[in-house]
């Protein structure tokens, strides 16, 4: 699907003559270039002007919008993105872009999606609060500005133009990606835009609550240190945050912990080389991921990397303790941490301005669904802590200890047992993130013979390799 057909944003195509003019000029510019046989095309005054103007648009596309930007500025910024992407996608042939900065492609797409995210949240808030009729009217009149279809369209078009999926597949097969890159994808700028659009899709799907599609989006990207996203710290970080979060929402806690741990360890190892400004922006996400790890560990107790464990105890020590204890007291803590750490979910369609009370905050919606599973599991820590003390136990006796009915305890035992099976991703180079094998993740196992519970605990052999390696490297250093 290209930008012209299908779901082209109405504003860019219909009401914005600037954009079309821009495309015409770009066409013209290329013709001049062609006829001139490589002659400097900047000697044509209006073309030079246009090029300069476009260059400033590029710069603007990667600039953060002021926190208190007016609605007008937000609309203008959207128009600017439309113009930029329209030019990049719809000019005749690939455009020669002079990227204003080294990682412009990431910065621009990151800012594009951030503005889409904040705009959608803002629009929903205006509708919910219903106390700003003037802005509500403007938003009502322009339902397609920062529309979800337009944003998805930009990302998919960039992916398609750059043939990035084909390129990545070729790289996986150890073939030359340039052979399948096509005229656009051979250019570094298109390749980067295409690549980071895949990461962008991961983010947008996650923001819309489509967690399985979010993970599926990354099918073509290999998660390793050689991946292109790893070269840009912010991209690296964003990718793992959304992948980890999606895993958590799919109840694949072992995988989620693995993703969060990977990136947090990476950050802690590189923080000395990070420039301060960059590091500051990472600190917030860092804390969010620690909160998510706390949630995942509560669902799936496991040994964490020492660095992370220390950081977790420092930052969320009290909360972690409550989560691990389970029961009704843990519920507010789950809610608190989820709210701190979740993405700012959005709704893909404009809110209903006529019925303010019908516009529930998407964050609350996703939280309430998530809490269903939390509540289902909240007795598991209690049950397990008792079971650990025995090798056999009578169900009615245990029910007495816990002060519940035997029927209820039977349910708890079944829930706890069923949740020890989890899909876990195996990284063998060609598995998609959604794939995995069903493994038993708990060291505690039990089976029932009528009302008699047989319990067995897996003995953990000591893990020495990690300890050995750490001390070895300490001695070396």
């Amino acid at each position: 699907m290209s930008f012209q057909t299908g779901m082209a944003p109405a504003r860019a195509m219909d009401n914005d003559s600037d954009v079309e003019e821009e495309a015409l000029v770009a066409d013209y510019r290329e013709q001049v270039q062609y006829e001139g046989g490589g002659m400097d095309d900047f000697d044509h005054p209006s073309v030079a002007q246009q090029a300069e103007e476009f260059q400033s648009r590029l710069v603007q596309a990667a600039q953060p919008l002021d926190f208190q930007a007016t609605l007008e500025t937000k609309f203008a910024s959207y128009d600017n993105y439309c113009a930029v992407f329209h030019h990049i996608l719809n000019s005749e042939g690939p455009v020669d872009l002079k990227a204003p900065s080294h990682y412009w492609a990431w910065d621009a797409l990151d800012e594009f999606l951030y503005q889409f995210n904040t705009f959608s949240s803002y629009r929903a808030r205006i509708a919910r609060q219903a106390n700003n009729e003037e802005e509500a009217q403007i938003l009502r009149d322009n339902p397609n500005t920062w529309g979800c279809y337009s944003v998805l369209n930009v990302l998919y078009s960039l992916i398609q133009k750059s043939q990035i999926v084909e390129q990545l597949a070729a790289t996986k097969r150890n073939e030359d990606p340039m052979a399948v890159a096509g005229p656009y994808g051979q250019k570094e700028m298109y390749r980067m835009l295409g690549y980071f659009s895949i990461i962008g899709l991961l983010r947008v799907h996650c923001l819309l609550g489509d967690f399985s599609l979010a993970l599926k989006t990354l099918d073509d990207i290999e998660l390793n240190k050689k991946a292109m996203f790893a070269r840009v710290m912010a991209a690296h970080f964003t990718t793992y945050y959304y992948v980890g979060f999606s895993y958590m929402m799919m109840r694949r806690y072992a995988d989620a912990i693995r993703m969060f741990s990977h990136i947090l360890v990476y950050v802690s190892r590189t923080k000395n080389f990070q420039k301060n400004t960059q590091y500051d922006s990472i600190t917030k996400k860092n804390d969010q991921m620690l909160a998510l790890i706390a949630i995942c560990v509560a669902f799936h107790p496991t040994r964490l990397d020492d660095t992370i464990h220390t950081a977790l105890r420092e930052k969320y020590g009290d909360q972690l303790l409550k989560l691990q204890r389970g029961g009704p007291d843990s519920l507010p803590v789950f809610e608190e941490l989820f709210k701190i750490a979740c993405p700012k979910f959005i709704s893909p369609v404009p809110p209903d301005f006529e019925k303010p009370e019908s516009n529930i905050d998407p964050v609350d919606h996703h939280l309430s669904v998530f809490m269903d599973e939390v509540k289902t599991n909240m007795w598991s820590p209690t049950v397990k802590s008792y079971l650990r003390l025995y090798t056999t136990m009578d169900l009615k006796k245990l029910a007495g200890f816990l002060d519940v009915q035997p029927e209820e305890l039977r349910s708890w035992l079944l829930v706890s047992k069923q949740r020890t099976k989890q899909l876990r991703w195996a990284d063998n180079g060609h598995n998609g993130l959604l794939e995995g094998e069903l493994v038993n993740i708990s060291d505690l196992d039990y089976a029932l013979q009528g009302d008699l519970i047989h319990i067995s605990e897996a003995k953990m052999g000591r893990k020495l390799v990690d300890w050995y390696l750490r001390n070895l490297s300490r001695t070396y250093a």
Partner: protein
Amino acid sequence: MSGEDPQERPEQIRNIINGLERYNPQAAEVLEAYLQQQCEEKFCDGNANRALLKLYQLNPDRIKDEVITNILVKAMTQFPSPGFDLCLHLLSPSHSNPGPNSASDLSEAVSKLRALNLQLEGAQYAPFWATLDSDDIYADLTTDIAGFEEMIRLRIAQLLSQAYREVQTSVLEGWLGLDGEEEVKKFVVETCGWKMAEEGIVQIPKNADNEAKKTEIREDVTIDMFSRVIKRSWEDSA
């Protein structure tokens, strides 16, 4: 996960959900027909059904209430799994949380199904059958799904076999939603292939999950773990 990507999925559906066609509002009709097929032929395609919910999410004017509830009931039959929750995440908040002023038939139906699903996820099987029986609305909501009760019953039996070696028929009767000991016996012997031991006790054959065997987890040590150390000592001495 067979309920997520079943073998029955035809080529046409595969093309829709793996390509950009999944955003084409017209694809909704094809996916709706496919859901109908799933309901009749007793299989479940979670990914295809969520692609349909996604289309509804982006094009609310196309929403058909009974399609949404059928998808939810289908997802419910896969318990315990995140499938049902993943569907809820794709619904508009106003559809899954009936507010005081916005209660619609759809939001009421969704909240009913949500409560039902919670009981299955929470292994409260006896209360589940009681809830199902308590209101005619459940019969309406599950009527399109062929063999709904049978699928749930089989799934419960399968899950029990993963936790139990022996179980009392009195407990089974409630969990399987059956009437009387005779029905229970018939079901466990004929459908599940379990044995009646002494009076009132059903014996479930051994399997990997109901043994609770003692294991020791050892650390696997491979040479790769030491590659950096070895490389470094090599470089240092060179």
